[in-house]
C-alpha cells in the first residue's frame, strides 16, 4: 500500500484517473472509441492528439528543468518554427510536393534547435540566469515569427504537411505517433546512456558536479538545444493542424502550461531528479482539464478561473508538505494526547 502511494508517479496518475472518471460521470460516452474511415475517434484520442504539442514541449522542458534551469522561450519557438515551415511551403509552386515539405520541416527544426542552442549558450557560457536568458527569446521570438510571416497569417494547402498535426497513420493520429517515438528515444537517450544521471547531478549540485569533473556546460547547452527542437516539432504540429502559421498566437503561454506539466509530473523546479513519464502524465492532466472544460460546457467567462482552481488543487495534492499537514490534522483527533509535539509528528508519519 505504502509502496504504491509512495511511488513518484502515483499522484499524477491518480489525478489523471480522477479527472477522466469525472468526465465519464458527466459525459457517459467519454471513454468510447470508434473506428471511422479507418481512424480511431473518441474523446480519449482527442486528448492525446490535442495534447501532443504540450507533451513534446513539456518533455524538453523537463530536461532543462533537471539541470536547474527553465526555458520561457518555447512558446515563441513554436511560433517561429510554424512560421518558417509555412512560409517555405507557401512559396513553393506545388505545395503538396513531399520533398518540398520535408525540406521546410527540416529547416524549421534546424532553426528551432539553433534557437535552443542560443539559449544554452546564454545560460552555460555567458552565465545569465536561465529565466532571463530565455526571456529574451520569449519576447524577441514573437517578433522573429512576425518578420517571417510579414505580420500576416500564412495559410498553406499542403496535404503532406497537414499529416503532421492533423493526419492519421495506422489508425492513430500521426502526431501521437511522433510523440510516442520522441518520448521513447528521449527515454533511451537519458536512461541508457549516462546523460540522465549527469543532468541530474548538475541540477542536484552544480558545484559538486564541477568538482567531480562533469563538463556541465556542454550538457546544459545540449539540454536547451533539445528543448528548442521539441518546441520546434510542436510548432509544426500546431501550424499543420490548422494549416496556418499565426506568429501572434501560436504557442502563446504554452511555456507556462509546459512548466506546469513538469511540476504536476513530479519534477522539482529546483532541478535534479526528473521523470519523463511523470511529465507526460502532467501534460495529459492539463489537456484533459482543457477538454473537460469544453465538453462539460463550463461557461466561457469562467473557464480560466475554473482551470486555475483545479490546477491549484492538483498542485496542493502533489505537495508532500501539504499532504503531511492535512493528514496530520485528520489524524490528531484519533490519536491519544501526545506527550510532546515532536512525538505526535513521529506517530503520524510512521
Amino acid at each position, binding site marked *: 500500500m505504502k509502496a504504491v502511494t509512495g511511488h513518484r508517479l502515483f499522484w499524477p496518475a491518480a489525478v489523471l484517473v480522477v479527472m477522466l472518471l469525472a468526465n465519464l460521470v458527466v459525459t457517459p460516452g467519454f471513454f468510447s472509441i470508434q473506428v471511422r474511415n479507418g481512424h480511431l475517434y473518441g474523446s480519449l484520442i482527442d486528448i492525446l492528439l490535442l495534447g501532443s504539442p504540450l507533451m513534446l514541449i513539456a518533455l524538453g522542458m523537463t530536461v532543462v528543468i533537471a539541470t536547474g534551469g527553465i526555458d520561457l522561450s518555447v512558446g515563441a519557438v513554436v511560433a517561429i518554427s510554424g512560421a518558417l515551415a509555412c512560409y517555405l511551403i507557401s512559396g513553393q509552386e506545388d505545395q503538396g510536393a513531399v520533398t518540398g515539405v520535408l525540406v521546410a520541416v527540416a529547416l524549421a527544426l534546424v532553426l528551432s534547435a539553433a534557437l535552443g542552442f542560443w539559449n544554452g549558450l546564454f545560460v552555460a557560457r555567458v552565465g545569465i540566469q536561465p529565466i532571463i536568458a530565455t526571456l529574451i527569446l520569449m519576447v524577441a521570438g514573437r517578433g522573429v515569427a512576425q518578420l517571417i510571416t510579414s505580420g500576416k497569417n500564412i495559410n498553406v494547402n499542403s496535404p503532406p504537411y497537414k499529416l503532421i498535426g492533423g493526419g492519421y497513420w495506422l489508425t492513430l493520429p500521426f502526431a501521437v505517433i511522433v510523440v510516442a517515438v520522441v518520448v521513447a528515444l528521449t527515454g533511451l537517450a537519458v536512461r541508457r546512456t549516462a546523460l540522465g544521471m549527469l543532468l541530474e*547531478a548538475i541540477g542536484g549540485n552544480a558545484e*559538486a558536479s*564541477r568538482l567531480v569533473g*562533469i563538463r556541465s556546460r556542454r550538457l546544459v547547452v545540449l539540454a536547451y538545444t533539445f528543448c528548442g527542437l521539441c518546441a520546434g516539432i510542436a510548432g509544426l504540429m500546431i501550424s499543420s493542424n490548422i494549416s496556418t502559421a499565426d506568429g501572434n498566437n501560436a504557442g502563446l503561454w504554452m511555456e507556462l502550461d509546459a512548466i506546469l506539466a513538469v511540476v504536476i509530473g513530479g519534477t522539482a523546479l529546483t532541478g535534479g531528479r526528473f521523470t519523463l513519464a511523470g511529465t507526460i502524465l502532467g501534460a495529459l492532466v492539463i489537456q484533459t482539464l482543457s477538454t473537460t472544460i469544453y465538453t462539460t460546457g463550463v461557461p466561457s467567462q469562467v473557464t480560466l478561473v475554473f482551470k486555475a482552481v483545479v490546477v491549484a488543487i492538483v498542485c496542493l495534492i502533489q505537495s508532500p508538505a501539504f499532504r503531511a499537514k492535512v493528514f496530520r490534522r485528520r489524524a490528531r483527533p484519533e490519536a491519544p494526547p501526545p506527550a510532546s509535539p515532536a512525538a505526535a509528528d513521529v506517530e503520524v508519519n510512521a
Partner: protein
Amino acid sequence: MPGAVLEMIGVSKGFPGVRALADVDFRLFPGEIHALMGENGAGKSTLIKVLTGVYSADAGEVRLGGERVSVTGPQHAQTLGISTVYQEVNLCPNLTVAENVFIGREPSKAGAIRWREIRRRAAELLTRFGVDVDPGARLDTCSLAIQQLVAIVRAVDISAKVLILDEPTSSLDRDEVEQLFTVMRRLRDDGVAILFVSHFLDQVYEVSDRMTVLRNGALVGEYQTARLSRIDLVGHMTGRTLSTLEQLHVRDETARVQAEPVLKADGVGRKGAIAPFDLEIHPGEVVGLAGLLGSGRTEAARLMFGADVADSGTVALGGASVPLRSPNAAIQHGVAFCPENRKSEGLIEDLTVGENIVLALQAANGWLRPLSQAKRQELVGRYMTALRITPADPDMPARNLSGGNQQKVLLARWLITQPKLLILDEPTRGIDVGAKAEIQKLVVSLAEDGVAVLFVSAELEEVLRISHKIEVLRDRRLIAEIGNAASVTPEGILEIIANGTTS
C-alpha cells in the same frame, strides 16, 4: 578600572545533542579591544548570538551597564547599544556610502529626506574615523575593507557602547587590516568596548588588550594579551598539554622512494587565499597540511586540483607542466579531490549511493560511454564492501547516509578512478571514531600501494599519525616544511604556528 559595560554570568545554551555554551562568564569593559578566542565549534558564534539576541540563553544572565537585560533580537540589541559587524557586510551595495550610513534613519523634514544633510554628516563621520572615501560613491565600487569600515561607522553612529566585530579581517589584505585597526584603536580611545573575533593570532596580538578563551563551549579563562604567550594561548584553545599527549605511531621516514614527484608546485598562489608556495609530492608519500582554521590549508589544496585557479606559479603533474584552469585538467592527470564541505561540494544528495560512487568515472568517460549495468554493479559492490559503506544498499538516496558513510562514498567515487594523487580536505571531520580510524588506515594502505596523498586536517595528531612530510601554514602562508619523525610532536607544530619566524 571602571565597571564592565557588558557582562555575561553563567550563560548556557544548548542545541539538540550539543552543548554550545556551558556556564560561561564574560566581561567587556569600556575602552578596550577584547578578543574572543577559540577553535571552530568552541562557542564563539553562539556567544555572540546570545549577546545580540539571535539566540536566547537557556540559563544565566546578560547585564548591560550593571542592569540585567534580555535581548530579544539584533534590532533590540542595537537600541541597547550593541552593534555587530559581520564578515559579510550587511549593507546595500547599490546605494552610496552616505546613504548606507543613514539608511533607515534618514534625517528628514516634513517627510522629505534632507539629502544634503546626509552627505554632510556622513562626510563628517568618515573624516572623524579617518576613512578616506567619497560619501557619494556607490558602496559596491569601494573595496571590501572600506565597506567594512562604512559598516562600522554606521554601527558606531547608531549606538556607540559595544561594537562586535565578527571575523572582520578574513578577506582583507595587510594594508586594509592596518586601516581597520587604526579605526578600532580610535574607537577604543573614545571609550567604545570592542569585541573582536579573528582566527589570525598575529592580528589578535597586535590589536587586542584582553582576551577570553573558550573551548568546547566552556570558559577557559580571561587573560591580558600582553601577559599570555602565544604558545600558552594555542594550548588553551586546543586543550593540549604534554601530559595528555598520546604516544604517536612513528613512521619510517627514510624509506621514501626518490622517484619523479607526482605533483610539483612552483610558486603557486592566489591573491587573498594563499601566498605563493612550493610543494612536492612523491608517489606513495602522504603529505599533511597543518595549520589553524583560516591558515590557508583548504585554499592550498584547492589550487592543486584546479578547484580554484591560481594567479601565480606553475604546477607540474607527472613531470609535465599543466595549467589547472578547471578540475578537469587535474582529473585527466590522475588527481582526485574530496572537498572539505561534503554536502555542498561533494555529495549529490538527490542521486543514489551507487550513482554518487560512479559519478567521477562516468564524468571522465563522458555521457556517451556509459558503464554497463554489470560493470557498474561490480564496481559499486566492490568498493562499498571494501570501504564498508553501510547500509549496503546502492539504490538508497545518498542524503540518508551518515556523515562517515557519505565520506566513504566520496572516497569510493575517486578510488574507482585509480588516482595517482588523492587530495583529502578534512576527510575525517565530523565523523565517528570508528569510521575515522578506517579512513586513516585506508590512506596509509593507499600510500603503500604507491598513491600520493595530500592530507588536510585540523587535527594535528591525525596529520602526524599518517603523514611522511608536514607542511605548516599560518596566516595564509606556508611557513615550514618538516619531515615526520618521532621527535615531531603536536606541541612542536603548535610552536611553529605560534612563533614561526618565516613570514
